[in-house]
């Protein structure tokens, strides 16, 4: 037994020998040859077996010669040099970085290539005269790094990372540090004489530094407060902005009139801590995207047949009546009718079902399927935006921007908080007006300053930020902090069936019919060896007997139907029920029927296997939630599911993508908070409509539809724990609210008695913020210990 030198796969019995090394296939050997010829074999020293089997190129990238398409992909082009960024999913180790950054050794036209490992991209700069986009894409593919080019690349270019928050935060940090230093002398009042002389310099320097903090770093709080007020919501940003403005105005008045030093350090500190919380709450996963729609799956171009000639056109230009050529492994971008060839379509992107569906000429093909057996020709009946699947995206859910009226926990509390603060300030102002009118202004501003809910505003971001990180380590990736809060409110959980509670890779097989002798089994296996159909392959690995060495005679594979062959003088026919002319006892099953010497023997039935722990997960969830199965499939497995799952689980079968969406809408109208768990593009509408949409994915690097969270399929069993933790996090935040109110009460004592000096504020404010942060961090770590 030997392993491939290039990709590490098992070479089987007959490895391809080259240069004293074993290879599993010709593809791997070719990559080795290419790299060896350019003295790039260091590739194999950096990591053992770093390669991936290259896929076939044959005409795949012809469309990159179309200038219109190429122009959309290029980031920069001045006629001589061009820059392109390819997304290459197979980047996985340091050898990959090395070889991709040495592309210039393989193609003279390439000037530089730069890999971004976390994002799995390579940015290539090349000379237009010496090479072309197509040549580079083909070069990458030929060494096993196939670039992934989709319709999305053509639409959105250069969506740069927003760095505003980093700038705001760094300005606040800079000013906070410097202002603190400058304000120290007056706090300690060491030497009366020289302090008197220089305090004006210090004060005005502080003023200069605080101006950008108020007007740049803190501007989002003002904007959000104004927006909130316009919608008649008192969100947390209202008291914050009030506090910031009062701090700024009072401090400026103090230094103008030479009353005191002002609260510039507290002001800069406050903004710094608030922004720090905001920054901490942001968690971006470079390798994930939560915004994908069908465009990330669909190709950018297709081959159109015009008068017998092949022509590459952008997908957007497809018109009704066009003839399209779909090659093996290509995706069908529009609805159409099959004209020529045998279609075996893998709709796993759409439905999660990975077993290909066979179609005959004249059948209708829906967009989203991946052709898996040879090339086909089809005639277009719907353009891309009108296709059955893509129509879904014209629904309003996909166009709704962030809803500003969504109330989160902090905002709910801040409503009462703000009203209370304003009342206290008002009453205190009147009271002091009668006691000592000169103090009234002081007290009112002091109340507003001390009430600025810094600690309150910090507890949620730090608690959520920490939980987000902990979930991320456990492979449950959330889009943002609000998702945790939304999960904690859920009362109904809806599951998709195929691909969500069933797993794609493990298919359960069982045999029904006359028992086969071991010799017959061997014969069946030998024939299956010659077939490339996915079902044949899974059955081949299911049968344990060793196949014959000799090849079957008269082997014939009828695509989409089955295979027949003669082996050891017995005639075998394997395939679908219609191929063998037998009555299929149930239409809903996927099965391979077997006929030996014209006698029907029986069939192998392929059942979807449910994920490990499905039963337990449902049993635990059933205690607290309504559970619903919402499937696009027929109800063939309903009896089994009813046995497996808790009694109160409801079932909805034969749901079209739009039906799923409207179903969720109707439940929401009843006042339910719905969480949807799905995986395919057909769930996209449901995921968008639900309060929380979770996409489940076998491999998180591969695509998943737009959603609020992505869960690694292997962590499916932990789902109830994640839900429970989200609820506990909310409790932690509530506890920290109580904690921060205590600080406010202490501060209020100083404010109401007119004793709030800058020193008190300078101690109380950071102390409360830091202790709250420590408090929530320790508690959230503690509650997630068991995860």
């Amino acid at each position: 037994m030997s392993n491939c030198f290039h990709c590490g796969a098992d070479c089987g019995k007959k490895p391809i020998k080259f240069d004293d090394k074993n290879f599993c296939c010709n593809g791997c050997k070719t990559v080795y040859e290419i790299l060896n010829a350019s003295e790039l074999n260091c590739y194999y020293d950096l990591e053992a077996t770093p390669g991936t089997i290259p896929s076939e190129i044959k005409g795949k990238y012809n469309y990159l010669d179309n200038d219109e398409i190429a122009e959309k992909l290029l980031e920069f082009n001045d006629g001589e040099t061009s820059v392109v960024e390819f997304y290459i999913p197979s980047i996985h180790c340091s050898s990959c970085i090395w070889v991709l950054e040495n592309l210039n050794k393989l193609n003279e036209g390439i000037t530089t290539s730069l890999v971004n490992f976390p994002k799995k991209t390579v940015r290539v700069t090349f000379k237009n005269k010496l090479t072309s986009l197509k040549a580079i894409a083909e070069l990458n593919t030929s060494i096993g790094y196939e670039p992934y080019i989709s319709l999305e690349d053509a639409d959105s270019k250069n969506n740069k990372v927003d760095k505003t928050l980093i700038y705001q935060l760094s300005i606040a940090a800079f000013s906070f540090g410097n202002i603190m230093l400058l304000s120290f002398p007056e706090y300690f009042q060491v030497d009366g004489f020289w302090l008197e002389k220089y305090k004006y310099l210090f004060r005005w320097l502080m003023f200069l530094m605080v101006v950008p903090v108020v007007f740049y770093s803190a501007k989002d709080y003002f904007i959000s407060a104004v927006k909130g007020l316009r919608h008649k919501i008192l969100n947390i940003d209202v008291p914050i902005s009030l506090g910031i403005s009062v701090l700024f105005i009072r401090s400026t008045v103090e230094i103008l009139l030479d009353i005191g030093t002002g609260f510039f350090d507290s002001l800069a500190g406050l903004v710094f801590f608030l922004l720090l919380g905001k920054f901490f709450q942001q968690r971006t996963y470079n390798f994930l995207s939560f915004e994908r729609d069908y465009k990330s799956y669909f190709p950018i171009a297709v081959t159109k047949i015009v008068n017998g000639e092949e022509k590459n056109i952008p997908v957007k230009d497809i018109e009704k009546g066009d003839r399209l050529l779909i090659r093996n492994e290509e995706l069908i971008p529009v609805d159409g009718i099959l004209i020529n060839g045998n279609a075996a379509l893998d709709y796993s992107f759409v439905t999660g079902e990975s077993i290909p569906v066979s179609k005959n000429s004249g059948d209708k093909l829906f967009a989203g399927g991946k052709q898996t057996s040879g090339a086909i020709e089809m005639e277009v009946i719907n353009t891309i935006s009108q296709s059955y699947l893509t129509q879904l995206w014209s629904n309003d859910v996909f166009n709704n921007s962030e809803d500003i009226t969504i109330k989160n926990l902090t905002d709910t509390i801040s409503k009462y908080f703000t009203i209370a603060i304003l009342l206290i300030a008002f009453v205190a102002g009147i009271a002091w007006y009668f006691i000592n009118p000169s103090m009234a202004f002081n007290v009112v501003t002091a109340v507003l300053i001390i009430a600025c809910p810094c600690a309150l505003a910090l507890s949620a971001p730090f608690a959520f930020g920490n939980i987000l990180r902990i979930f991320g380590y456990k492979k449950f990736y959330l889009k943002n902090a609000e998702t945790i809060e939304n999960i904690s409110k859920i009362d109904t959980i809806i599951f998709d069936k195929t691909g969500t509670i069933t797993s794609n890779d493990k298919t359960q097989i069982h045999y029904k019919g006359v028992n086969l002798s071991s010799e017959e089994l061997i014969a069946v296996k030998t024939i299956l060896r010659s077939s490339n159909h996915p079902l044949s392959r899974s059955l081949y690995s299911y049968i344990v007997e060793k196949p014959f060495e000799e090849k079957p005679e008269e082997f014939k594979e009828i695509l989409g139907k089955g295979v027949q062959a003669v082996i050891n003088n017995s005639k075998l026919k394997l395939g679908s029920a219609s191929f063998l002319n037998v009555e299929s006892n149930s239409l809903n099953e996927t099965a391979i029927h077997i006929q030996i010497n014209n006698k029907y023997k029986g069939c192998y039935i392929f059942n979807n296997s449910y994920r490990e722990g499905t039963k337990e997960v449902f049993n635990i969830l059933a205690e607290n939630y309504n559970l619903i199965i919402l499937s696009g499939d027929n109800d063939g497995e309903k009896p089994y599911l009813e046995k497996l799952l808790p009694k109160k689980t409801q079932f909805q079968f034969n749901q079209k993508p739009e039906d799923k969406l409207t179903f969720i809408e109707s439940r929401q109208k009843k006042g339910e908070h719905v969480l949807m768990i799905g995986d395919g593009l057909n769930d996209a509408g449901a995921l968008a409509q639900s309060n929380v949409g979770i996409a489940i994915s076998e491999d998180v690097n591969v695509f998943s539809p737009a959603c609020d969270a992505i869960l690694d399929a292997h962590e499916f069993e932990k789902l109830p724990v994640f839900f429970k933790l989200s609820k506990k996090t909310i409790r932690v935040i509530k506890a920290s609210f109580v904690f921060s109110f205590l600080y406010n009460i202490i501060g209020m004592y100083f404010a109401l008695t007119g004793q709030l000096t800058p020193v008190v504020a300078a101690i109380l404010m950071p102390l409360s913020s830091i202790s709250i942060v420590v408090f929530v961090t320790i508690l959230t770590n503690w509650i997630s210990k068991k995860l």
Partner: protein
Amino acid sequence: MEVVYITIGVSIIVAVFFFIVFLKSVKSGQYEDTYTPSVRMLFDDELVKDEKEGSKEPEKAKENQQTNNKN
């Protein structure tokens, strides 16, 4: 004590200078990919050897170095 004006002035100018340098480095995208450069810097040796190349010997040496690096 007039020197305070100068010292404070200088300290603030130095602070602002470093602050601007920091902002520039953020803007240039220096912090966007913090992983790849850490791997890339280890490659420089291999590139030089490759250019020299020719016989099998340097390759052996390279391999030895590799194992040393790993240790």
